[in-house]
């Protein structure tokens, strides 16, 4: 009964991954795709080309900055939201569901509306900024350094904090009230209760969230591609892979970079797993 599923996953996921490895060692262009042989002619040229281009290294740095900051910001805001919505109040269910909207909304619509909001000509943010906040001139948020990178990180925070919020809320509901009551009786203030009672209980969840969010942000393509197209210092590796594949038609170099991306990710995740969260994850 499981075999059809295994077949489809193997054919459409496992084989392609292995094939990427093969492609990365071949000199294959999109134009010659229909005539070229699919195996053989192995070469290291793609990797030489990838590692020797400065664009690759700066894209790697951008990817790291984007994923670390995006992950931290999303989890931070998720934690604040989970704590603020902890106590009951009228309409909490509605508020909670509303906060999850950015995470389920279609990415294309979300990036489009953000792009218009931040538009220098008639976007509401610049309009409010120049009229009420006294900015000298409209800011081109998505097309100049370093605001473009900051903006995509803020967007990542907006889009992903609901995920952290959801998991942290679930964990908070499972935290026993007796501990906090005992601390309160002993005279602990709310921040002390948070620091010494709640935070230690949340740490394992935060560790798992950090891992998951980091992996997803590191691999993220849609958000940056749709917001900036990879311009103005926001080119992350996945966007670079896409450019090589579609614009340049250089399949070999695209595969090589995708492979390096996955390897870097694998190494980082292994290191994290080993040192930071040995007991907490798993």
């Amino acid at each position: 009964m499981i075999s059809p599923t295994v077949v489809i996953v193997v054919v459409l996921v496992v084989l392609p991954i292995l094939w990427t490895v093969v492609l990365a060692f071949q000199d294959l262009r999109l134009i010659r795709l229909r005539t070229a042989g699919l195996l053989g002619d192995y070469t290291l040229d793609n990797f030489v080309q990838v590692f020797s281009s400065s664009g690759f290294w700066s894209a790697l740095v951008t990817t790291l900055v984007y994923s670390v900051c995006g992950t931290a910001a999303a989890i931070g805001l998720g934690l604040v939201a989970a704590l603020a919505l902890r106590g009951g109040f009228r309409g909490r269910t509605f508020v909670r569901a509303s906060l999850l909207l950015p995470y389920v909304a279609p990415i294309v619509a979300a990036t489009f509306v953000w792009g218009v909001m931040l538009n220098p000509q008639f976007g509401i943010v610049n309009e409010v900024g120049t009229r009420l906040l006294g900015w000298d001139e409209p800011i081109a948020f998505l097309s100049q350094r370093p605001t473009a990178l900051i903006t995509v990180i803020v967007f990542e925070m907006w889009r992903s904090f609901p995920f952290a919020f959801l998991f942290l809320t679930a964990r908070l509901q499972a935290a026993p009230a007796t501990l906090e009551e005992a601390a309160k009786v002993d005279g602990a203030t709310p921040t002390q209760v948070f620091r010494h009672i709640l935070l230690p209980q949340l740490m394992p969840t935060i560790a798992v969230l950090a891992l998951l969010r980091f992996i997803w942000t590191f691999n993220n393509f849609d958000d940056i591609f749709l917001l900036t197209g990879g311009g103005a210092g926001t080119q992350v590796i996945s966007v670079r892979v896409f450019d090589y594949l579609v614009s340049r038609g250089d399949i070999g170099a695209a595969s090589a970079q995708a492979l390096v991306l996955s390897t870097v990710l694998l190494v980082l995740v292994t290191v994290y797993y080993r040192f930071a969260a040995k007991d907490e994850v798993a």
Partner: protein
Amino acid sequence: MADVVTAAADAPAAPTAQRRGPTAGRRWSRYRVEVRVLGVLRWVVIVGLMLFTLFPFYYMVLLSVRDLSALLQDPARLWPALSEFTVSTYREVLTSTGSGGQGFLRFIANSGLIALGTVAVTLAFAISGAYAIARLRFPGRRNISVLFLAVYLFPSILLAVPLFVFFTRIGLRGSLAALVLVYVSQTVAVAIYMLRNYFQTVPASIEEAAAVDGAGRFTILRRITLPLAMPAILSNALFVFMIAWNEFLFALLFLVEDRSRWTVSLGLSQLAGSIEIPTTVLMAGSVILTLPIVVLFFATERLLTGGLTAGAEKG
């Protein structure tokens, strides 16, 4: 900390002073200040978060019903004036390109077809697969779960290159069916993982009772296990539907060349760069893209979030 220590030292010496005077005020001051400040801050945070999350959606709807020239004159207006209120943007975005519109009806049909197809195929695979993992013993049972989870975490851009090459080579790139197949491979792993957790909560004794009464394995699955697992299956279906409806990268890679096959996401992203189409018309397109997801989400929020976190607590 220092406060607490002094207060405790003072307490036995002057038990009467504690109740009335400034000592009592000082002893609890940090506590009181924090409770006050946090009490206010909490509402500030809630209101701030609501604005932060919902404003883009409100802005989307707002722009979709405003007139373009009025928007350019007064971009900061937060609600549409009655005189400029219009739904012609929706008409323009929906009508076909032949009659001067943007043809979103066609895109909606494509998206719907792809999403429903993905749901149907994924569920067919996932139900049988999850049931097998939960109930049957076979060699490699544990490894399969790991394989499926690994798939979930893999970068889709890594899969994009070989799948693009493969489907180009066999000449199927551009067909909706190929895209459905790719989506199924992306979603089936999570679907199996979530369903398996649910199947395991269905007591095996019920199935055994049915087996004693002479029911075969498929009868049991169809008449006993599936009805019991309906909530999980439904939330799974919604989850897969949302993924397929929202997906962008593979739609872009596979379908971009032929406008009549575009999905709503792809259509919006392709037209967004054009200067000829008014922003307000495209905003109407975004509303059309977002609305089904928001409606589905609010209708089934309990089911979905329950399913998501139920899967999380085990892992």
